[in-house]
C-alpha cells in the first residue's frame, strides 16, 4: 500500500487529488465515490444572486475547451443553508470557493462561509475587481496583497488563493498572496481565449471571450506552478490540463503538493479516481512508499534564474 496522504494548506488530505472549482458538484456522487477523493471543491459563489452569462457558454477547441459560464449564483445564504449540508455525508474535507467584485464584499462573503462543515476557503481572486477597472485581483501584486489581507482578517479557516494565468507577474503575485496570508495557492484558473465559427462569422461563445482549459493549457500552467513553487513557502496546488496520473506526476515533480482535476471530469466522470489509482501505481512501480516523497524532486541541471529569454531563444 502506497501512502498517498499529503499536507496541503492547513489540511491533511488522504490523497493529493481533488476537483477544480466549477467542474464538480454533488450530482457527481451519483456516479463516483466521493470518499475516495482528497478533498471536495464547490463551484465559486458570489455574494449576490446572479444568472451567469448568455449561451453558448462552452466551445470545444483543439485539445481543450472554452467556457464563459460566468458565476450563476444563488447567493451566500442559500449556499450555506442548502448546499454545504449536502456534503456533510462525505469524509473528504469540503473546500468552498468564493468570489466578489470588491475587497470588502469578498471579505464579507468569506465571513459568511466560515461555518461548520467547511474545511478551507478557496478564494477565486481571478475574477474582476470593480475597484481596479475590472482587472482581476490576481493580475497584479498590490491588488492581490490588498484583497488577501482583508480575506485573512475575515476568517480563521485555511485560505487557498486561486491565481490567474493571465498575469505577466506570476511569481510576484504568488509572493503577494503569501504575504497577504494565503495558506496555499491554486495555480491556476483558465487562460483568457476565444474562437470563431467561420461559417457564421460569430464568436463561438455568447460572451465572445472565455477561459481555456484542458490538455492544451498544461505546459503553460505547469510552468507557472513551477514558478510559484520557487517563489513561495506555502503549498502550491497544480490545476490545468490534468487528464491522467502522468500529468499529475509532472505537477508533483515540479513541487505541487496536490492537484485539481477539472475538464477531464467532463470526458470521464471517474477521471479523478483514475488519477488517484494511477498515482498509486506509479509510486508502487517506482518502489516509493509515500507519494509525498516525489513532490518537488525535479532533476534539473539548469539554473534558470530570471533569464527566460535564454530558455526560449
Amino acid at each position, binding site marked *: 500500500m502506497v501512502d498517498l496522504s499529503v499536507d496541503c494548506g492547513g489540511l491533511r488530505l488522504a490523497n493529493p487529488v481533488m476537483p477544480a472549482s466549477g467542474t464538480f458538484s454533488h450530482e457527481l456522487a451519483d456516479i463516483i465515490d466521493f470518499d475516495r477523493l482528497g478533498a471536495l471543491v464547490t463551484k465559486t459563489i458570489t455574494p449576490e444572486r446572479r444568472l451567469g452569462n448568455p449561451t453558448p457558454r462552452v466551445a470545444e*477547441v483543439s485539445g481543450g475547451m472554452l467556457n464563459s459560464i460566468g458565476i450563476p449564483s444563488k447567493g451566500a445564504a442559500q449556499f450555506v443553508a442548502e448546499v454545504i449540508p449536502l456534503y456533510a455525508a462525505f469524509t473528504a474535507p469540503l473546500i468552498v470557493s468564493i468570489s466578489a467584485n470588491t475587497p470588502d464584499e469578498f471579505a464579507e462573503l468569506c465571513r459568511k462561509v466560515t461555518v461548520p462543515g467547511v474545511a478551507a476557503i478557496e478564494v477565486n481572486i481571478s475574477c474582476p475587481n470593480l475597484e481596479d477597472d475590472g482587472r482581476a485581483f490576481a493580475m497584479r501584486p498590490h491588488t492581490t496583497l490588498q484583497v488577501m489581507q482583508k480575506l485573512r482578517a475575515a476568517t480563521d479557516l485555511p485560505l487557498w488563493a486561486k491565481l490567474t494565468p493571465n498575469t505577466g507577474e506570476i511569481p510576484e503575485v504568488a509572493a503577494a498572496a503569501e504575504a497577504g496570508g494565503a495558506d496555499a495557492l491554486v495555480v491556476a484558473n483558465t487562460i483568457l481565449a476565444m474562437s470563431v465559427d467561420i461559417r457564421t462569422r460569430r464568436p463561438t461563445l455568447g460572451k465572445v471571450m472565455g477561459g481555456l482549459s484542458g490538455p492544451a493549457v498544461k505546459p503553460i500552467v505547469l510552468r507557472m506552478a513551477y514558478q510559484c513553487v520557487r517563489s513561495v513557502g506555502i503549498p502550491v496546488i497544480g490545476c490545468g490540463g490534468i487528464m491522467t496520473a502522468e500529468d499529475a506526476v509532472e505537477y508533483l515533480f515540479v513541487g505541487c503538493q496536490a492537484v485539481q482535476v477539472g475538464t477531464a471530469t*467532463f470526458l470521464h466522470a471517474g477521471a479523478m479516481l483514475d488519477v488517484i489509482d494511477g498515482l498509486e501505481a506509479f509510486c508502487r512501480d517506482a518502489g516509493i512508499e509515500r507519494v509525498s516523497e516525489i513532490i518537488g524532486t525535479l532533476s534539473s541541471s539548469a539554473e534558470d534564474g530570471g533569464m527566460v529569454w535564454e530558455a526560449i531563444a
Partner: protein
Amino acid sequence: MIEAAVPTQSATPDRMPATEFDAEVLCNDPVNEEYNLMAVSVPERATGAVPGQFFHLLCPQKDALQPFFRRPMSVYRIEPEARRLSFLYKVTGTGTRAMAAMKAGETFNMLGPLGIGFSLPADAAPIVVLARGVGLATMAPLIPFARSRGHRVTAILSARTPDLLMSVDEMRRDGADVLTVTDLQGTSDVEIVEDMLHMLYGKLRLGGVYVCGSNRLMLAAQRVARRLDLFGEVALEQQMACGLGMCFCCVRPFREDDGVVHRRVCREGPVFPLLEAMQW
C-alpha cells in the same frame, strides 16, 4: 386543471444510476440524406433508460475529426431483451461525423442513462406526440412505452419534404395513428397543426401533448394546452459539456411563478413541463 401525471421515473435521487460503459456498434447506416441510425450493444443496466432520457457519447477522435466533448444523444429505441439501444442522429458537426464514421464491431464509451424522461397522464388517457426533425428521435420511444401502458397514441410528424419523414412505418407498427405534414405539401403550418390538435382533442378527449424538435410546434402545443387545460411536456436540446449537472453550460430560461429561472437541460430536463418552457 392539469391532470395528475405519473412520472415514468422518479426524480433524483432514485433515478436509474448512470454508468460509464463501452458499447459495441452493431450497425450504423444512413436512413436518408441527413440521418443515420446506429444500434449498439450495451450492458443490461443501460437498457433501464426511459423515453426522453439521453446518453452522453464519447465519439472517437479519428483523423481530422477531433471532437473534444461528449455528445448528448437521446435514445431512439430501447430493447432490453436484446440489450440493444439505437440512436437516430443527424450528421452535422464534428461529433456526429465522427459517430457516422464508426463501423460495426467498433466500441465506444457512453455515459448514461441521464436526465429526466417523459411522464404519462393518469387513467391511460390518449396522448398526441408532435415531432419534427431531430425531435423525432426523442419522441419515437415514447410511442411503444405509452402503448404498453394502455394509452392510445397519435403522432403528428412534420418535415420539410415527404422524403425526410422517418419512422412512419415503425411508429405504426408500434401502434400509433400517424399523421404526416410537410412544408412542401403546405400542410405543416402551425395553424393547420393547431386545428388538428383541437380536432383530436374533441374526438379522443386527449390527456397529454408531447412535443420536440421545433420552436413553432412547441408554441402551437402551448397555445392548445393552455386553452384546453391539457397536460403537456416538451423535450429540449442544448449544448452540453458534463451532462451531469456540474457545469451549467446547458441552461435554458423557464417561467416559474412570475419570474424567469434557468434550468439545466441535462439535469432538470431534457423533458420539461410544456407551459414553463420559453421560445428560442
